[in-house]
């Protein structure tokens, strides 16, 4: 190559002069993808950084010990020893309770945080009015979430009852480190001093409470060494430990999972943009045929011409990616406001050079690699075209015998796979994702070929000319069928898949409530309260839909081995061996369960009065415990050993508003064990529902109640936030899809213009030309939408089936609406970008010669 790169660059710059703004528009297909990537990565990096900076505040101390039961004497004395050794120890108890104010119609389930005076060691709990947290220990006062005041129609100074104790509401909570704001809609938080807990009389048998001790270690002490030193004591007491590092790791992991998911969606938007760049460059090369031929006449080698176009594409890709990065940073700065309440830390937005750099690099690479295939087309432009307008074009060689094109193709495929692997975080997921994208594109290309062929065959001579002409454009030489169907169909596929998955996930949460038809639950009902709760429910003529006994227990031995031995077995999950189980007993399967192994309890099992008893296990739990039908498990039920044999395994649909259990016993095994009861009932009138809740809580203060309508609302709220994120991404792909459509349409612009002018010369009116284009684009839009949507049914099914492990149901009407929108958009974009065809006078046909 004789000319230096600098000369070529100058040539490239001049060459792009007439089309720069138009090319930039098409490059904005890249911008949107880059913007999404940069926004998500930057935000996620911000969050991770904030978690790292705030992790001690999030935990409140350096080390936390917690247990489902009050600490046994062994742990208490350990804590005393530590305290004497100069390590400050703070205590807290967290449990749920009903909160009531005198004039409120219904009580409200709340999350009670009973804290000792030392807690937290790090971070501050902000209140309104300020400084009220420091006064919490002084008297019978309570700090509550602002939302609770609204729900109970209460104000500062009102009396709030928790069980048998009464507190004055002294302020509201503004910011509690580590708390996820949105969680408070499920159970608003209430803070009291730990010493008032006994007075509430709420912690009775079966109450779910978390007892915790927070430790502040001397600077430089690794919490892990403290944990290791006392492992024996803590393990035997079932005490869980959590260090600052654990907190950081688990929160960071969650954020990175979300980042991965959204990042993959952003990447797909970027790839879609790549498709757009490819067709824009194809159009540009087509438009530049004459100048290129002239350059060749003047002595430019085909390599030099290639280099000029590559430089142009690279520069424009860089510009597009830079614009995208700016947009992305803007979005990143806005995200903390959108995501407030979902993220457990105060996110400090700051520029993340790595995220920006990666976004721009991926953007430029995608632009260049996608543009490479059409750019290679310049090699075939012969200098002869400069002097002979109708010079025969060199035929396109087969991909396999054209090695530069083959290499470009392989580079493109490899880039997509590698970038996908990088983003998805695992080789398997990366390959699955790029494989999915590739399969969708191949299927769309096949569909396009089939469409072209079918149209040619089905077209009838007697159809109106404009329709025939429009439809025939689908299969004629240089048609846009494949380009548009790929771009548009892929966009439709993406959006529809996202929509279907979101809808199915939502449906999973809502459908179940309707099935059980229960809308009110009472739980923690003690044995001596069963009768009173039952009669209170019947007094308002409400049905008792379910009455479910619950017995807390732990595993004592499994397959004849004690738990302390069994945990060393790598095939058994230690969480499953150590956890507390809340089991039940009954003699029938319920709607949310399906038997997958063994047989259900028979008459002998249900009548048996001696052990070993039959139990039914959740199938997933059985695999975690590495047990099968016929294996033995011994349970520790409040100190009593109960030997059981696994009789069958069930598959349980957990996402339902009804009590489901890992372990179900044959009825007689637990009949005499200490237990609590859950009642499910249905009261349609909200006022009556509130009255019943109030009556039960006044009579039995320790009983908790949940209005399922409230839960539904809370879940809707959470799902709503997640939906916003997903829709945000879908919007990116829609906007990109439109840009891609624009560039696909532009690819055929020159030919359109020529045809339009000729038709006018031959006597076609503008209306006729408009109808020809309308019928072409309408059919293209319809076919692309239909293909994309049908593919999305498969894609969404696969995601639901393999990723979310849930059933899938398609949604007809919304997809039809989506299809209509796509068709309308296609027709509008097609017609509007062809408006010069209307404007051009037929004189051009003469002048062009």
């Amino acid at each position, binding site marked *: 190559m004789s000319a230096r790169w600098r000369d070529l660059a100058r040539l490239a710059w001049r060459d792009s002069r007439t089309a720069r703004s138009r090319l930039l528009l098409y490059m904005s297909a890249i911008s949107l993808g880059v913007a999404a990537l940069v926004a998500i990565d930057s935000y996620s990096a911000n969050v991770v950084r904030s978690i790292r900076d705030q992790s001690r505040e999030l935990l409140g101390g350096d080390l936390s010990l917690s247990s489902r039961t009050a600490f046994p004497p062994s742990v208490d004395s350990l804590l005393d020893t530590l305290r004497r050794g100069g390590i400050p120890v703070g205590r807290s108890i967290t449990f749920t309770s009903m909160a009531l104010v005198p004039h409120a119609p219904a009580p409200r389930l709340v999350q009670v945080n009973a804290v000792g005076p030392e807690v937290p060691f790090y971070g501050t709990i902000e209140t309104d009015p300020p400084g009220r947290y420091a006064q919490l220990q002084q008297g019978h006062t309570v700090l509550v979430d602002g939302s609770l005041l609204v729900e109970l129609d209460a104000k500062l100074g009102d009396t709030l009852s928790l069980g048998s104790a009464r507190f004055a509401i002294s302020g509201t909570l503004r910011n509690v480190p580590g708390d996820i704001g949105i969680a408070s809609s499920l159970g608003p938080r209430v803070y009291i001093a730990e010493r008032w807990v006994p007075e509430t009389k709420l912690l009775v048998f079966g109450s779910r409470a978390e007892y915790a001790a927070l430790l502040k270690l001397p600077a430089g002490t690794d919490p892990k060494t403290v944990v290791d030193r006392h492992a024996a004591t803590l393990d035997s007491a079932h005490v869980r430990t959590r260090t600052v590092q654990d907190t950081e790791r688990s929160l960071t992991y969650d954020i990175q999972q979300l980042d991965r998911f959204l990042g993959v969606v952003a990447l797909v938007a970027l790839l879609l943009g790549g498709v757009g760049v490819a067709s824009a460059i194809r159009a540009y090369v087509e438009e530049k045929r004459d100048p290129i031929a002239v350059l060749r006449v003047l002595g430019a080698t085909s390599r030099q011409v290639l280099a000029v176009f590559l430089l142009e594409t690279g520069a424009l890709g860089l510009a597009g990616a830079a614009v995208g990065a700016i947009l992305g940073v803007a979005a990143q700065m806005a995200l903390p406001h959108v995501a407030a309440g979902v993220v457990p830390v105060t996110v400090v937005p700051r520029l993340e050079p790595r995220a920006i750099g990666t976004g721009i690099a991926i953007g430029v690479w995608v632009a260049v690699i996608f543009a490479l295939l059409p750019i290679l087309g310049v090699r075939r432009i012969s200098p002869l075209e400069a002097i002979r*307008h109708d010079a025969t074009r060199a035929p396109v060689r087969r991909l396999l015998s054209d090695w530069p094109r083959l290499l470009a193709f392989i580079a493109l495929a490899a880039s997509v796979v590698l970038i996908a692997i990088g983003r998805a975080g695992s080789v398997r997921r990366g390959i699955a994702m790029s494989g999915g994208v590739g399969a969708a594109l191949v299927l769309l290309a096949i569909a396009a070929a089939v469409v072209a062929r079918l149209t040619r065959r089905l077209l009838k001579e007697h159809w109106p000319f404009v329709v025939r002409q429009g439809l025939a454009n689908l299969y004629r030489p240089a048609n846009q069928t494949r380009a548009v169907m790929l771009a548009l169909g892929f966009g439709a596929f993406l959006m529809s898949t996202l929509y279907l998955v979101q809808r199915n996930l939502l449906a999973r949460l809502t459908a179940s409530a309707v099935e059980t038809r229960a809308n009110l639950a009472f739980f923690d009902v003690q044995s001596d309260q069963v009768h009173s709760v039952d009669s209170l429910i019947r007094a308002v003529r409400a049905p008792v839909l379910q009455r479910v006994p619950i017995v807390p227990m732990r595993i004592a031995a499994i397959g004849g081995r004690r738990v302390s031995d069994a945990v060393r077995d790598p095939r058994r999950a230690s969480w499953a061996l150590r956890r507390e189980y809340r089991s039940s007993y009954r003699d029938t399967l319920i709607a949310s369960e399906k038997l997958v192994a063994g047989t259900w309890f028979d008459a002998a099992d249900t009548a048996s009065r001696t052990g070993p008893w039959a139990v039914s296990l959740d199938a997933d739990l059985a695999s975690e415990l590495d047990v099968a039908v016929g294996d033995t498990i011994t349970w520790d039920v409040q100190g009593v050993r109960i030997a059981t044999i696994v009789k069958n395994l069930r598959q349980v649909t957990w996402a339902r508003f009804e009590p489901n259990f890992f372990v179900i016993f044959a009825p007689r095994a637990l009949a005499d064990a200490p237990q609590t009861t859950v009642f499910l009932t249905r009261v349609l009138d909200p006022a009556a529902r509130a009255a019943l809740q109030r009556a039960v809580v006044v009579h039995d203060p320790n009983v908790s109640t949940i209005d399922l309508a409230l839960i539904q609302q809370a879940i809707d709220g959470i799902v709503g936030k997640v939906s916003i994120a997903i829709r945000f991404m879908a919007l990116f792909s829609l906007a990109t899809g439109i840009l891609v459509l624009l560039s696909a349409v532009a690819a055929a612009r020159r030919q359109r213009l020529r045809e339009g002018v000729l038709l006018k010369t031959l006597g076609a009116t503008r209306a006729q030309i408009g109808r020809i284009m309308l019928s072409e684009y309408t059919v293209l839009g319809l076919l692309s939408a239909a293909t994309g949507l049908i593919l999305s049914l498969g894609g969404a099914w696969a995601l639901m089936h393999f990723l979310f492990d849930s059933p899938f149901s398609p949604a007809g009407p919304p997809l039809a609406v989506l299809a209509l929108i796509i068709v309308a958009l296609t027709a509008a974009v097609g017609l509007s970008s062809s408006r010069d065809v209307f404007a051009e*006078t037929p004189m051009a*046909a003469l002048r062009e010669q």
Partner: protein
Amino acid sequence: MLRDVSFTIPDGAFVAIVGPSGSGKTTLLGLLAGLDTPTAGSVLLDGAELGTLSEDARARLRGEKVGFVFQSFQLIPTLTAAENIAVPLELRGVRHAGSRARTLLDRIGLADRADHLPAQLSGGEQQRVALARAFANAPRVLFADEPTGNLDSATGDRIIQLLEELNRESGTTIVLVTHDTALASRARRIIQLSDGAVVDDRELAA
């Protein structure tokens, strides 16, 4: 720019408009055919004042009364030979346009090329298809803009012969624009343009 241009072409005439590059030939042709409208003055085509018609009305008029042959053939590249010929018929909603197109192809000796795309035809064949298309609607007047410019002399001659036949047999008015004096001499009247003005207008002896 054209100025002081005024002439009448009677029905069935065969006129050549000649002049060097930039003399205004193409502009004049565009005005005569209603592809463009004059900024001043008027053009009457078979009694219709073209300047007062809308673009679409002029398009319909062209479809009915005007045929075109261009130097670079201007066939629609994505349509087959038969489809190209059928376009003017179809635009007017004529029935059985396809079979009429094939009849015309037969007449110009290209029946076996009906399903070929323009790129698959030679220059001469393309120009014959263009001629068939121009005559599909049996126009009152046919405008030919350097119709032999891109053809070798033998093929060009064949095209001119076809034009002459059509003029003779169906009485179609032919307006030929060219800078080729030999070609112009085949016409019965020559209008010469120079710098936008008519400098000569003479009948040739038959």
